[in-house]
């Protein structure tokens, strides 16, 4: 039934275009359908993040940033929003609507997002490829309706040109090629008591994930090293040391986990291949708010682009810190010094501990969303409802980020310092995104 309604609206849209090539009625109808295109491509992209094996959290953040910039630049192409070209590192002027010609924005958006998604998820499996094809075929037909062929072709061409421009830019950032699912085949592990060591018996994960990710070109901040970290407490095995105390806190936390703390640990676990990953989780939050508050397309693409950019930069900054400090995980320290058979509540990710990735990116996400929507913006997050995980309510984005951060301590995979410093680092990184100009 829903499908039929969409077909009907496509015909209505086409009729309005033919009769009247400008005017508020047309604009309103057009922009509603453009948002539908955005939402459907994002929905598929979150599925593909979950189901494409290279899509660990840093890789996911990168793709969601480029997808966001693509959608944003389509809206900027008509002149409604200020282009991010010249504001984002290395992004040159993007293609625009040509004056004197008619375009259908929904067709431009559909064409651009289809091309971007196909490029970003080119390595997804056969089911993902099938879903990409089906969505493109369906949306292409829906948005085209009876739009005259010349307008349709012009709009599609512009959409592809915008996507191609963004994708060419993406190829030079250092993160375009992921080999061996992100785990280097050769990597010299640093020795030492404080150094990271493999934490599981998965052969592929005896090397740490994406050790060079911190060297990638960021989007809005100058470099991965821009937002410095204070560093973890000095490594020590002395029971009176701060380091030991923070380890003991992890042990105690697990011993005393309440049902709600367990729920929090699982809610924010966001495991790769089993969820949309942490950056996908925050994109999902934004999509839920867009739907709940019926945001218009310009606001929607603005917030999606900003959120994607901030989280991608957060992972670059965080990874720069991770491989600078190369700190061992709680499970390694605790088994060595406190309890030889200790197990964390959730799986320990296969890369160094400090800072906490979820904390840095959640800090950045909350910083950007708070600037966009305001302080004390309450929302419910049902990202994992399809997995049978109950939604959680938050009083503000900072509230959610703080919970995401502390979930890693409940889960037994981070010390407190990594969480607190991570959130602070995220704020620093998010400030560069907040400085972007999107409105004239």
């Amino acid at each position, binding site marked *: 039934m829903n499908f039929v309604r969409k077909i009907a609206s496509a015909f209505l849209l086409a009729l309005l275009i033919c009769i009247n090539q400008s005017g508020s009625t047309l604009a309103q109808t057009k922009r509603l359908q453009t948002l539908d295109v955005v939402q459907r491509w994002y*929905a*598929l992209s979150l*599925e593909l993040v*979950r*189901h494409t*094996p*290279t899509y660990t959290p840093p890789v996911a953040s990168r793709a969601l940033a480029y997808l966001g910039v693509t959608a944003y630049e389509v809206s900027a192409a008509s002149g409604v929003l200020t282009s991010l070209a010249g504001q984002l590192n290395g992004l040159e002027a993007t293609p625009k609507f040509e004056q004197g010609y008619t375009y259908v924005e929904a067709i431009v958006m559909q064409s651009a997002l289809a091309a971007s998604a196909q490029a970003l998820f*080119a*390595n997804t*499996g*056969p*089911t993902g490829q*099938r*879903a990409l094809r*089906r*969505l493109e075929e*369906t949306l292409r037909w829906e948005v085209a309706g009876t739009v005259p062929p010349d307008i349709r072709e012009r709009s599609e061409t512009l959409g592809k040109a915008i996507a191609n421009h963004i994708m060419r830019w993406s190829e030079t950032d250092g993160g375009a090629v*992921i*080999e*061996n*699912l992100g785990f280097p*085949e050769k990597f010299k592990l640093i020795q030492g008591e404080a150094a990271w060591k493999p934490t599981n*018996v*998965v*052969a*592929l994960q005896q090397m740490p994930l994406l050790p060079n990710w911190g060297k990638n070109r960021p989007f809005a901040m100058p470099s991965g090293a821009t937002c410095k970290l204070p560093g973890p407490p000095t490594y020590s095995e002395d029971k009176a040391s701060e380091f030991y105390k923070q380890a003991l806190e992890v042990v105690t936390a697990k011993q005393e986990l309440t049902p709600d703390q367990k729920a929090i640990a699982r809610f924010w676990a966001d495991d790769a*291949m*089993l969820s949309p990953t942490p950056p996908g989780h925050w994109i999902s939050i934004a999509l839920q708010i867009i739907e709940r508050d019926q945001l218009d397309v310009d606001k929607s693409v603005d917030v999606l682009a900003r959120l994607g950019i901030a989280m991608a930069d957060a992972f670059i900054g965080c990874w720069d810190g991770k491989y600078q400090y190369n700190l061992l995980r709680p499970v390694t320290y605790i088994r060595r010094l406190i309890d030889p058979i200790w197990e964390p509540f959730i799986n320990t990710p296969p890369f160094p501990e400090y800072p906490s990735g979820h904390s840095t990116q959640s800090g950045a996400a909350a910083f950007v969303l708070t600037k966009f929507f305001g302080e004390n913006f309450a929302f419910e997050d049902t990202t994992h409802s*399809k*997995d*049978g*995980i109950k939604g959680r309510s938050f009083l503000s984005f900072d509230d959610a980020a703080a919970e995401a951060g502390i979930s890693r301590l409940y889960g037994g995979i981070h010390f407190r310092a990594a969480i607190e410093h991570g959130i602070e680092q995220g704020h620093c990184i998010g400030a560069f995104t907040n400085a972007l100009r999107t409105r004239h």
Partner: protein
Amino acid sequence: MKRQSALSIIVLLSQLTSNATWAAESLHFAEETSSSGLNSVYAGDWEQIVGGGVATFDCNDDGFTDVLISGGTGPAKFYRNASEQGGPLKFASQTSGLELDNVSGTYPLDIDSDGKTDLVLLRVGENVIMRGLGSCKFERANEAFGFEGGDAWSAAFAATWERGATWPTLAIGNYIDRKEEFSPWGSCTDNWLHRPAGVEQTFRSALPLKPSFCALSMLFTDWNRSGTPALRISNDREYYEGGQEQLWHVEAGSEPRLYTEEEGWKRLRIWGMGIAGYDLDFDGYPEYFHTSMADNKLQTLAAPTKDGKAKPDYKDVAFAKGVTAHRPFAGDDLKPSTAWHTQFEDMNNDGLADLFIAKGNVDRMPDFAAKDPNNLLIQQPDGKFVEVAQTSGAWSVANARGAAIVDFNLDGLLDLIVINRNDPAQVWRNTSAKAGHWLEFRLEQKGANRDAIGAWIEVKNGDKILSREITSGGGHASGQSGWWHFGLGKETKTEARVIWPDGTIGAWQPVNGDSFYVLEKDKPAAIWTVQ
């Protein structure tokens, strides 16, 4: 003292190296696909990304194992085994009634216990039971057996006879909703449990096993030696939401129920594709190998007990044993692997079970090896495994799915057949000249469950007891019936016994190596020879 220890270590290392070398050098396979007459392809596109199985069974009572190969979009192909004992492998294509299309997997089972093997054909569409008529002829039996074939993408199978039952219980694992085009993720369809309909020799309506998480392999197995097999299901995490691997209590007279965390079950989420079980460490409990993408898992009970009350808490020893098989061991394409059918068998007859893993890219997934060689991992005396697929001649980088390890020419050496997706199936003859001694058994009991599914065969081998569970299911889309093989190493005489499905423990019986025996309940072991 220290020098003595060092010397001991050197001697031990030297022995291990020597054993590994022996394993590598003693095993030889000759590919006989073309000369055997085998010519079959598991063909298809998206709906054939999984499946591609083979059933091996004897349908003309000559002792030689015949073959049915899934054809995907094409018809399944039946081959009568025309080999001679000890000779090259020969297969004769023959019309059998089994030539259905859209067959993904196939398992042999004497459902009506008439002494003639029936076949369960898992299909993309309606599943079909084909009743054996003798002389390798089969007819559809869904209606006669009260079997609801349904309409799903079926990819996994297991069978058991519940306590006191005269008719089997069949578990069928179903994959995603193939009609869901836009977002097939999370569309796992229900697995089915087909239980007997009381005294009548038919099935009840299929019972959905909820929740279901896109099963690609199932196995009824007595994992804790309680006498009642449970249903282990391996699920593909690519498609489920909120899912995990599963172990079900399936007890006569009770509704099936999942093992819980309170009972000790630990959550595991993998791209589950195949299961093989075997008691590798001689403690009486099976270890389980689970195939997946990249790393595979070898599970052993974390805390085995002798009272049948162990918790289903397993630790992964794949890394320690050298069987992660996470990427090609050779070749120029070293991206992560994709594993499907798996099977433990003693390929060199040294008394230690070895491990075969079929490998093949799902469908042009660029992050995984496109030329992904199958693994043949030989167990060494220290419990670790060494790869010999290339050196032994069993090398293939075709796009494998199902497989079976069978003694096709009844020479005591196990041969190998592998089904490839959109590539011809392949068969290798085991031509090893220096393998150890061996035994092969066929079980028989009167009445229901004639082939004694759920029994355990035990064979003394030096100071160890080799034991294997007689199961129907597991692997990937591929099932076997007929001879059960043991390697004996240097032993030429030993003893064997059967623990029958009803718990009856048969007496130890003297048996000679390099022989075939029929073990019939309450009767002395009967030697069998080719007529």
